[in-house]
C-alpha cells in the first residue's frame, strides 16, 4: 500500500465540509431527533443515550486508548452525579447565581478529583492487576455509599429539583425536551473534546503505551504517568456524565455507583468496539436501546446481554465498529457487493440458530420463572404453546442444532469469498 500525497487545488467550502461535515451532521441529527421521535418514552431514552455516550467514551479512553481494563469506572460517574445533586440542592437553598447548564462541570471536577486520588494508587500497576485494583476500589466506594448516609443517602439516594436554579432566558429545564437539548449540547461538546484528545501528543502516547509499554519507556515516557493522566481525564468526563445523569433523573442512588453500573459501561464500550473512536458511541446507543426495549419484551433480557457480550468477546473482539471497519477496504475496492450474496446465504443458519436459542431461553424462562404462577401457556412471536410440552423444546433444539451445523459447513465459503474480495 503506497501513500500518494495528493495536492489538489481544493475549493474552500468543500474542504471545510469534508473536515467538519461529520460534526455538522452529528449536531443536525441531535437537533432533529426529538422532532422525529416525539413520544415521552423516546425522549427519555434519547436523554439516557446522550449521558451514556459521554460515559462510555470516557471509559474507552482507558480501555481502548490506553489499554487499561477498569471494573470500577462508575465510581467517577457516581461521585460526579452525587456531587451534582448536592450542588443543586445547595444552589437552590442558598439562591446562588449559578445556572443549571454549568452543573455538569461540578460533576466533572469531582470525577477529576477522585481520578487523581485513586489514579495515583491504581495506575502504579498495569494489566490484570490494574483491573483487579479498579474492581477493589469500585467495591470500596460502593460499600461506603451504603455506610455514609449523609452524602449518599443510603438505599433511597438523594433527590434534587433542577427547576429551582437560576433561570437564564426563561428556560427553567422543567420539561424533558429542554433537558434533552442540555444533554445533547454537553454530549456534543464532550465528544469533540474527547476526539480532540486522541489527536494530541498525550493521546498518541496513550496508544503507544497500550501497544508496547516497555518501548514507550525507552522513548522517554513514564508509562505510569501516561496512564495516570489518561485516568484523571477519563474520570473528569465520567464525572460530567454523572452530572448530566443527576440533572436528568434529579436523583442519585447507590445503584449509580455500583459494580453493576461499571459493568454496563464496559459492556457498552466493548459491544460497540473499543478499537475505534465511534465504537463506544454506537455501543451506548445500541445497549441503551436494547435495555429499554428488551426489558419490556422479555424477563431474561440480562441473560441475552451476557450472551451477546460473550459472543462478541469470542468472535468479534473489535465489536460492532470493528466489524464495520473490516468492510471498509472492500467498500473502497468496490468489491463489497461480491460478498453480499454469501452473507445472505449465511443469514439462513444464523437466523435458525438465533430463533432456536431464543425459543430455548424463552421457554426455559417461562417454565422456570412464570409457569408456577401463570401456568405453562405462553406466546412467542405470535405462536402460542405450552412451555411444559415437548414440541417447543424439540423445535428449539432442532433449530439450534441445524443452525450450528449448517453455519459450520458454510462458514469456510464465506471466509474464502471475503478473502477473495479483500485481496
Amino acid at each position, binding site marked *: *500500500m*503506497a*501513500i500518494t500525497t495528493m495536492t489538489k487545488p481544493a475549493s474552500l467550502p468543500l474542504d471545510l465540509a469534508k473536515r467538519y461535515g461529520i460534526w455538522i451532521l452529528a449536531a443536525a441529527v441531535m437537533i432533529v431527533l426529538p422532532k422525529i421521535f416525539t413520544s415521552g418514552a423516546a425522549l427519555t431514552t434519547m436523554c439516557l443515550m446522550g449521558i451514556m455516550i459521554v460515559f462510555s467514551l470516557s471509559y474507552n479512553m482507558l480501555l481502548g486508548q490506553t489499554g487499561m481494563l477498569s471494573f470500577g469506572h462508575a465510581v467517577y460517574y457516581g461521585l460526579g452525579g452525587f456531587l451534582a445533586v448536592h450542588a443543586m440542592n445547595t444552589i437552590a437553598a442558598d439562591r446562588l447565581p449559578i445556572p443549571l447548564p454549568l452543573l455538569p462541570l461540578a460533576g466533572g471536577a469531582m470525577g477529576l478529583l477522585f481520578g487523581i486520588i485513586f489514579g495515583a494508587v491504581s495506575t502504579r500497576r498495569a494489566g490484570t492487576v490494574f483491573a483487579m485494583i479498579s474492581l477493589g476500589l469500585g467495591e470500596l466506594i460502593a460499600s461506603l455509599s451504603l455506610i455514609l448516609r449523609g452524602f449518599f443517602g443510603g438505599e433511597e439516594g438523594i433527590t434534587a429539583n433542577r427547576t429551582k436554579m437560576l433561570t437564564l432566558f426563561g428556560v427553567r429545564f422543567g420539561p424533558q425536551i429542554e433537558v434533552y437539548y442540555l444533554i445533547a449540547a454537553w454530549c456534543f461538546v464532550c465528544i469533540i473534546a474527547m476526539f*480532540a*484528545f486522541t*489527536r*494530541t*501528543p*498525550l*493521546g*498518541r*502516547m496513550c*496508544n*503507544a503505551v497500550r*501497544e*508496547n509499554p*516497555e*518501548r*514507550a*519507556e*525507552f*522513548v*522517554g*515516557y*513514564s508509562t505510569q*504517568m*501516561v496512564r495516570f*493522566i489518561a485516568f484523571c*481525564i477519563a474520570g473528569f468526563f465520567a464525572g460530567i456524565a454523572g452530572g448530566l445523569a443527576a440533572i436528568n433523573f434529579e436523583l442519585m442512588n447507590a445503584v449509580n455507583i455500583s459494580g453493576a453500573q461499571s459493568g454496563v459501561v464496559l459492556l457498552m464500550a466493548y459491544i460497540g468496539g473499543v478499537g475505534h473512536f465511534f465504537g463506544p458511541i454506537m455501543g451506548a446507543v445500541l445497549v441503551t436501546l436494547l435495555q429499554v426495549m428488551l426489558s419490556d419484551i422479555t424477563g431474561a433480557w440480562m441473560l441475552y446481554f451476557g450472551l451477546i457480550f460473550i459472543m462478541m468477546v469470542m468472535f468479534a473482539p473489535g465489536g460492532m465498529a470493528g466489524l464495520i471497519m473490516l468492510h471498509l477496504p472492500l467498500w473502497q475496492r468496490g468489491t463489497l457487493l461480491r460478498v453480499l450474496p454469501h452473507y445472505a446465504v449465511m443469514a439462513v443458519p444464523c437466523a435458525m440458530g438465533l430463533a432456536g436459542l431464543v425459543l430455548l431461553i424463552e421457554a426455559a424462562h417461562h417454565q422456570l420463572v412464570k409457569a408456577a404462577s401463570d401456568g405453562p401457556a405462553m406466546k412467542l412471536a405470535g405462536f402460542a404453546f405450552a412451555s411444559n410440552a415437548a414440541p417447543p423444546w424439540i423445535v428449539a433444539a432442532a433449530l439450534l442444532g441445524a443452525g450450528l451445523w449448517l453455519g459450520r459447513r458454510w462458514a469456510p465459503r464465506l471466509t474464502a469469498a471475503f478473502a477473495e474480495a479483500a485481496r
Partner: protein
Amino acid sequence: MTALALDDLHKSFGATPIIRGVSLEVAKGERHAIIGPNGAGKSTLFHLISGRFPLSSGRISLNGEDITGLKPYEINRRGLSRSFQVTNIFPRLAVFENLRCAVLWQMGYRYSFWHNIRKATDANDRAEAVLQQIGLAERAMMPAGLLTYAEQRALEIGITIAGGAEVVMLDEPTAGMSRSETAHFVALIRKVTEGRTLIMVEHDMGVVFDLADRISVLVYGQIIACDTPVKIRSNKAVQEAYLGQALETEH
C-alpha cells in the same frame, strides 16, 4: 570527552553472577562494538546501561552525569537511546506514528494534551525525515506489525535514533538478516549515527570490523580486551577465548 563511562558494574541473577566487574569508557563520537560468545552477558550489559535491569553494584555515568539507578525513561531523556535484539515496536500503530511517538518527548511535547498533533510541525517533520532516512516512506501509513522482518529492524533503528539521542546503543542490529540486507544495513547505521556515539552488540564480524573504531571483548561477564579492530584481531587472548572460532566459522 567521555560520553559513557561504566565503573565496575556487577549483576547477579539470584546467586549467578552474569556481569562480573565491567569498566569501560566510550568517547564522544566513537563507534564502539561489544563482541563475545553467547551467554557472555552482552545483552544484560545493555539492559543495565539502559536501566531495564537494576545493577547489583557499580556506577554508570552519561556525559559526566551519574545515571545509576535511573528509570529507562529518565536515562532516555538524558540522551541515551537503545534498540532491542527482539524487534520491539508499536505493532498496531502506523509506521509514521511509531516514529512520531519516538520524537515527541525530545521535541518538548511531554504529556501535552493541549497541542494538536497535526500542527506539531517540528515533530512531524522530524518523523518524516527519519522515515525517509530508513527508507520506509512508502510504508508510512501501514501498521508496523505488517512490515517485513528487515523493514521492522529498520524501523527499530529509526525509533532508536529519531529522538536525536547523542548516545545510541544497538543490540544486534543485523541479526537474522541476509548478506545483501546486512550490507544495506551497515550503510544505514553509518548514515543515521553520523556524529553520534554508537555502542553496538554484534555477532557478524564483518559488520563489527567494518563499523567499529574500538572493540571490547566480553567473556563470562568480564571485558578481556578493549582496543582497535586491528589490535583485537591480533590479540592472543581474544583469539584463544573467542575470535579464533568466530573467524573460522565466518569463513
